[in-house]
Structures are given as C-alpha cells and as structure tokens.
C-alpha cells in the first residue's frame, strides 16, 4: 500500500524536498499530483529518515506545498513489446504519434545493469556506411559506439541520416532497427529527421523518442535511458541489429549540469558534475554484442562542441568512453566538401578488428595508413606554402601537397545519396596514390602493391 504525502517542505528548481515519509528507496519512481489534478513523475535522488529529495521530470511548474506525492515503491521501467517499432514517443516515453499506449510484454528497469565484460563478444563485423571517410579510414563495426563531434551550423544531422539510411553488413540481410533519441533539438530539426525517416521508409523500422528544445530539461536525463532500454530489448530479446542515434548529447549534459546546480553539488570542470564521466559511460557502454545473442547495439551519439572546442568537458569525456570519434570540420564545410569529415583527428578504435582479409580486403589497413600519412603531411605543407609559396617546395613536397587536395575532392567529397561500396572506396584511394612514385608508398607491403596498384592491375 503506497501512501500519498502532502509534506513538501521545499521546492527548488526541478527538486522537491519531502518530509516525514516512511522509508523510501533510492531511485524510486515518484508520482506527483498538483492541486489541479495534473500528474507529474519524478525520481528519488537522496533519501533518509528525515527528508527525501525528488527530481521532477516534467518540471516543477504548478507544484505547491499542497501537491501530493506518492512513492511507488518501484524504480522507473520502460514498457516494451515488439509493437514498439514504428512508434514515436515523447522524451519520457509517452506516445506522441496519437497511437495507443504501449501494451507491454515486458517492463524493464531503465537504469540498465552493466554488461559483464566477460559476456561481451568482441565487435568485428564490418558495417558499410557507403561513406568513404568512414568505411575507408575510420571503419565502423557492429557493437561500436562512434560519436560525431560537430559544431553549430555543420551538417552533422545529414551525415547521421545518411549513415542510418545506408548502413549495412556485407552480403547479409538481417533484421535491423533504428532507435532515434532527440534531446533538446529544435522543432525544425526534429521535423527534418522525421521527414527523412518517412521519405526513406525508415520510420517503419524505427523507434523515435522526441524531447524538443522547449520540453523540460530534466526529461532529457530520461530520454537516452528509455531509448537504450528499448534498444537492448530489440537487440537481445528480438535478435535485431540496432543502430542508436542520439542528438544532441551536449543538451543532455547541460541538463545534468542544471540538476547538479539545483542540488548544490560541488561542481567539477566548467560547472559540470563530477560524476558526468560515469553517467556518460553508463549510456555509451550500453552498446555492444553479447556472446550467444544474435543482435547488437551500435551507437552514433551526436554532440556539438561548444565553440568548436574539442577539449570542452563534454567531447573530452565522451572521447574517453567511445571507441573513436568522427570530427566534422568547419574548414572542409566552408570549402563545400560533403561530408566534411576531417580524417586527421577522427579515429575508429575498433577499425582493426573489422578490416582486412575476410572482412573487407587485405590491403585496407595499408592503404588507409598511407592515405592518412600523406594527407596529414599535405595539410601541414599548406601552412608552409602560405608563407613561402609553392615554388619553394621540393618536388616530393609538391606531390604530397597535390595529393592532399585531390584527396579532399575525390575521396572525402561525395553525394548525399552516394552509397559507395568499400571496394570503390579502396580503389579511389589507390587511384589517388598512383600519383605518387612507388618508392614513396612506404606503408604498403610490396606484395600488396604488386597486387592492387593500378599500374600492375592494368597489365592483367
């Protein structure tokens, strides 16, 4: 039997302080009724014999000392059934598409227990996204979490959508779903996403959670947890390969900071709470593959770096948890190159397990390293050219510089609907390397040069 309390002592920002309760469990789900009968939900953040602190998801607007608080004795759960695919839900999991409430087959705690590292399968299945800068040089594998670090005004959403559209495993048809969590994005952005999902028919195999910019910030703390609980259900109960896209993690972290400030916690870097790393880890680490299960969860978090600053706590901590990052470059975007992914600071940590013979092609690693090396060197040379002019360069340096320009135009640049196979991508790479003398290809073993270099291949 759960009692209702009318013993609210203090309301501060999104927090309620309730007195004189029976023992209340930590993290318990709380139902709050305003005097006008409006229902809100919250969660216990701190509990003791004297006082219980509750964070209210829908905001504390309309609450007063006369509002009643009910502790449900249970933690927050997500109702799940196979019918959830194709639904649009709010940031706190309520239907937003006019459809009926979800009739649950199961209800799952949204906190999410940690996957036992010993039960994890090593991710190694190559996912072809059709984008050269990802497939060729920052290869994605199933079960990976690869964030897109971007800045305000850059086409990160287009890149995410293109990935969602084109991502596939080589030579297999498997059941596949997208979980999309929007956190604090504008109505317009949300509409763009929805329109694209509808245009491409992706909506039928997607579950969408929308917390928009004008929805309560605290609700944002729930959204990824709901989304990932859904993803785990789809992947590990229904054997689906799930791609989770969430945007924008920056808004999520802002909400966390807001909560921390309201609780008067000791702030960490730039006012973000000290536990932000652990909190982000709990979300990001819900990607992966479990031994003996058919499904997988691959994550694409999108975050905009405030002031394009990669050392800002949000991208910085994210980078320590995720398996690499794709960096959207303002410079490339200005040059009109799409997708403007700068491969130099980008990285896929799981690339090695998903490429090479048996996955993509045996020359993949070598070609990628060689492209990287000369593109990086070419970019460095641009700085030099700005000072001394092209004429002062040695012959070798001139070749490298030209290579870097061609690389951006031919390899990086591609159409929004252009779906390149990995073999096309590698061949584009080889064609670019052809412009360099063979002795300069120091990262590629001789037998690979003999086998794949266009000069030798033409002879066949």
């Amino acid at each position, binding site marked *: 039997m759960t009692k209702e309390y009318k013993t609210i002592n203090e309301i501060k920002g999104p927090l309620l302080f309730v007195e004189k309760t029976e023992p209340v469990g930590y993290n318990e789900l709380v139902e709050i009724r305003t005097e006008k009968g409006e229902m809100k939900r919250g969660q216990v953040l701190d509990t*003791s014999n004297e006082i219980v602190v509750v964070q209210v998801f829908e905001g504390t607007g309309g609450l007063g000392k006369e509002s009643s608080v009910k502790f449900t004795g249970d933690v927050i759960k997500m109702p799940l059934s196979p019918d959830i695919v194709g639904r649009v839900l709010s940031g706190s999991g309520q239907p937003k598409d006019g459809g009926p409430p979800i009739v649950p087959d199961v209800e799952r705690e949204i906190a999410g227990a940690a996957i*036992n590292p010993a039960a994890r399968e090593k991710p190694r299945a190559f996912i072809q996204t059709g984008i050269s800068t990802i497939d060729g040089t920052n290869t994605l594998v199933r079960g990976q979490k690869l964030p897109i670090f971007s800045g305000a005004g850059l086409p990160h959403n287009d890149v995410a959508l293109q990935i969602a559209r084109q991502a596939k495993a080589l030579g297999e048809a498997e059941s596949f779903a997208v979980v999309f969590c929007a956190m604090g994005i504008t109505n317009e952005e949300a509409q763009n996403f929805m329109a694209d999902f509808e245009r491409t028919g992706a909506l039928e195999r997607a579950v969408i959670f929308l917390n928009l910019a004008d929805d309560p910030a605290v609700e944002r703390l729930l959204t990824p947890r709901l989304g990932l609980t859904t993803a785990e259900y789809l992947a590990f109960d229904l054997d689906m390969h799930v791609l989770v896209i969430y945007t924008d993690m920056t808004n999520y972290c802002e909400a966390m900071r807001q909560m921390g400030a309201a609780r008067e916690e000791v702030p960490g870097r730039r006012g973000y709470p000290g536990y932000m790393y652990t909190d982000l880890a709990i979300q990001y680490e819900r990607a992966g593959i479990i031994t003996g299960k058919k499904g997988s969860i691959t994550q694409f978090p999108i975050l905009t770096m405030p002031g394009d600053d990669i050392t800002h706590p949000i991208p910085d901590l994210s*980078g320590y948890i995720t398996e690499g990052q794709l960096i959207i470059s303002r410079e490339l975007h200005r040059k009109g190159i799409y997708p403007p992914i700068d491969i130099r600071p980008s990285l896929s940590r799981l690339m090695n397990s998903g490429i090479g013979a048996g996955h993509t092609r045996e020359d993949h690693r070598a070609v990628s*390293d060689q492209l990287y090396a000369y593109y990086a060197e070419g970019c460095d040379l641009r700085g030099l050219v700005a000072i001394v002019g092209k004429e002062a360069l040695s012959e070798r340096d001139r070749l490298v510089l030209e290579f870097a320009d061609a690389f951006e135009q031919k390899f990086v640049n591609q159409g929004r609907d252009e779906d390149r196979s990995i073999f096309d991508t590698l061949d584009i790479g080889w064609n670019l390397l052809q412009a360099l003398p063979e002795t300069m290809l120091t990262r590629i073993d001789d037998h690979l040069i003999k086998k794949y270099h266009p000069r030798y291949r033409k002879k066949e």
Partner: protein
Amino acid sequence: MEVGTGKVHRIAGPVVQATGLKSHMYDLVLVGEEGLMSEIIGIAGDKHIIQVYEDTAGVKPGEPVKETGAPLVAQLGPGILTSIYDGIQRSLPQLVEASGNFISRGLFVDGIDHKKKWEFTPVVKKGDKVEPGQTIGTVQEQLLIKHKIMMPPDKRGTIKEIKSGNFTVEETICVLEDGTELPMIQYWPVRRARPSRIKQAPTIPLRTGQRVIDGFFSLAKGGTAAIPGGFGTGKTVMQQTLSKWSDVDIVVYVGCGERGNEMADLLHEFPELVDPRTDRPLMERSIVYANTSNMPVAAREASIYTGITTAEYYRDMGYDVMMTADSTSRWAEAMRELSSRLEEMPGEEGYPAYLGARLADFYERSGRVTTLEGTEGSISIVGAVSPPGGDFTEPVTQNTLRITKVFWALDSKLTQRRHFPSINWLDSYSLYDLALEPWFSENVSPDWNKNKRRAMEILQENAELEEIVMLVGSDALPEDQQLTLEVARMIINFWLAQSAFHPVDTFCPYKKQFDLLEAILAFRDQAFGALARGVPTDVILGTPSKDALAKVRLLEDYEPELKKVLAQMESEFKTMS
C-alpha cells in the same frame, strides 16, 4: 571483534550513512536486504559513512547493515592466474554463470576456486623452523608457473605437521607447534602493502621489444612509468603491446574505468596470444581486472589496490611482475566522485586534497625487492593517465609525474600521421638512463649508449631545423643540414616507428634494435663522407640501399638481408661522385 548489525540512515548514490555500527575504517560491511558489498570510509558522530560497490537503487532507510569485522581483502592462493575479475576480485565468468549477461547486485563469488584440489608438494619437514614469507611447499599452478605456498608475512614457528597430496585451498596443509593451522589460501587487506626485506636499485632494464622504449626511454625492472596521452593517442594499444612482449613472468592488467568493448577485445585476445618465449598462451601467466566505466565507481576505486595486492603476492614468490593500470585518471576520477559525494572540501579541479598521497602510495608499491625469503622479485608499474583535453598541467598528470621515473609522452600529432608507437622522442624521458647504461654496454653492445646519444642528437637538431624549414622550405637549407633532415627521417620512419600489428615488427630484440640503428648511423657517416668529397645531396639521397634499409625491420631473419644492404650501401657510396 564482535560482528553486529546497524541500520541504513541515508542513501545518496553510492554513498550510504548508517547508524549503530562498530566497524573500523575500511572494514567491509553488507548493506541492505540484498547484502551489497560496501566499505566504511568515514565515521562521523554516531554515523558510519559507507561506500557501496554496487548500484544502490531501491535501498531504503532502515534496512540492515551487516558487519563483517574485516577490511576488504584479496584472496591469495593457487588459481589466481588466468582469472578475470571485477574491481573487488569477483570472477567475472562466474558472475555470468550466477546472474547472466548483465551484472546484478548482491552477488558474492570467491576470488579463487575453493573446491578445486591442487597437488601440494612440501619443501619443509617436521621440526623445521619457518620464518615469515618462507616457502613451505609448491603447487604447479600452470604448466610453467610454479606457485609457492608461503608462510603468511606475520607468522613464524616450528613445523609440527606438514602434509603432501591433493588439497583444496581451504584445507589445512601445515600445522605449527603453537597450534596454528595453515591452509594454502591467504587473505590480505588490499590497502596495505605486503612487506619485503629490501628494496633494490633499478639496474636491470625491462625488455619490451619496442625500439623507442628499449632504445631511448627504457624502463627498469621494478620501475614506474607513466603514459599520458589525450584520447586517441594509441595508449591502450601501447599498454597491450607491453603486456604481450615485456620479459616479465606475470602480467597484471587492471582495466580501471575503461571501455567494455576494449576489455572484451583484451579478454578474447589474451587467451589467443601465444607467449613468444614459451609458446604457451599468455593468459596462463596473466591476471586481468576489468572494471569498465559503467560498473560501480567504488569498485573502480578499489580495483587498483586489489590489482597491486595480487601483484605483490607473486612478487613475493620471486617473480617479475608487470602491472599495467589503465587508466589511473579514471581511478582518480572515482576518488573525486566519491569525495564529492562525501561533501569533502575539494582540492585542485575538484580532486580530493589527498590525491597526490594516494597516487604516491600506489606507485611506491612497485620495486625490485629482496623478498622476506631472500629471493628476488619485482613489480614494474605502467600507469596510464588520460589528461582532459590532453592538458598535461592537470593535477593527476602532475602528481603522477612527480612520482614516476619514466614518461612516455604519447603525441596525438604522431597518431594523426599514423606513426606508432606515438611516443614523442623530444618530450619523453627516462630517469633510469644512467643506472641502466652499464647493463646495456655489458649485455648488448659497448656502443649501445653512444649510438643512442648520437641518434638523440640528430633528432634534436632535426627539431630545430624543422622550425626553419617551416619558414623557408627545405631547399633553402645548406646541404649538410638537408642530409641531417633525411637521416632524422630515417631514424623516425625506419627505427622509431614500429607496427604493433605486423607479425615480425611487433617485437624487436635488443640485438636487432642495435643493428638497425647502427646501419642508419653507418648511412649517415658514409653520406657525410660523400658530401665532404663533393657529392651533391640529391645523389646521396637517391641511393637505392636507403630504401632497402626501410624494409629490413619487417624480416624475422633480418641479418643476411641487412648484411646485403650494408654491402650495397658501401659500394654505392664508393662509386658515387
């Protein structure tokens, strides 16, 4: 001490307050109906402050807190090797059996198997006097690792009875005159260092097979090294390579707050890896602690201590142990998180004021020692630090650098050029340099130290020249400086760069390291000789043997090829005009 029960008073995340307890600081208690593993971390008035190693969702005020009367201990005995643990020495594979793929709460599993029987062979007999730490018998734990059963470090006496045969770790194998019954298992509080007799000077290098480390910034056996590096600098690959190739007997790998998939990779890779020295699986001499970033933060804090305690146990048997802690920044962050929950006064950047002291305590548990028994063992620690934003001035990096003697500065610029290992040769250092010089000149080559200094000088000069090149271009340099640039490029690309994924290049023995560097220096000397004779630089730089030299390092049996290349080089320079 009498074991009692108290009551939960307040819960906020992993920190719980309880009343009615008599436990001491750092004693283990079990919180709530589920019995969550926890540790006393503070006492204030009538309240005990407790950090819980597991998620506290659902715990209510008024639930019981059971005392155990003992601090967090590691279980030490045969069966530790090959284990995969979480931060509080619970076997992860056993947790899978107990609770499935996700880790649920309130589970207790032993650190080592208490049912398995091991064949115990005594080495002492009735009537023998035994001292603390003395071996009383052995167990063949793995095919190549003999596990010594030692007297506990605080026990001495005369043997009244000693058994021989198959026993579980809990069964008595030895009885002393004073009536003490000794099983094979020992319990040791993880926060206390195990004693040894003397700490010795670091005069022997730890061979890693990595040219940039062995050649330039070598680590001594029993030494400490720090790998800082922003994310994406190849830190983790580096640490894994070290675990694979270093010449130590036992590897303890503590994945502290790291990625789940990376741990999965490690857990799949380790059993497949073959130890190059013994042709046996590397896992047979490894212990892995995997407390990923999403596992409870208090267990992450404990993992470093649990790890070093098991390392000390094997050191006491006379083994060389390497412990890699990946990453100590995550460990420091766990301390910060707990400290902030305790509402302690924060120090620099929110870290607790005792951060430096804790780091020092940990690193000081390394060392090459004479054990209580008189044998020699060592623990070398390689600690990764992940400075936020790659900023080396932050507190964890700074406090670590004050303690560790070797610094391998991983450089993201090198990573971007795909230069691995991405250890910056200008910023890194090893304070063991001088102490190790005699060993190298005696055991590898008298010229080792000289060559090393020459190569370093070339790289130094190269760095200065590159600044000029950035301004005026390389063509504007005098010929001898252009040559220096090219030689530096050879050292960087043919010698410092080493592929961890190439089957041969991943490990480079001392002899090969020396020969390759000697060959590059030979090229330099002949090139400068030719230049003095008036040969133009572009002719010198066009020598085919230079490019041939690049591929020698990729050969297992490199000596004939190197000889060929050197001979070719000599004849090319002779005929040059």
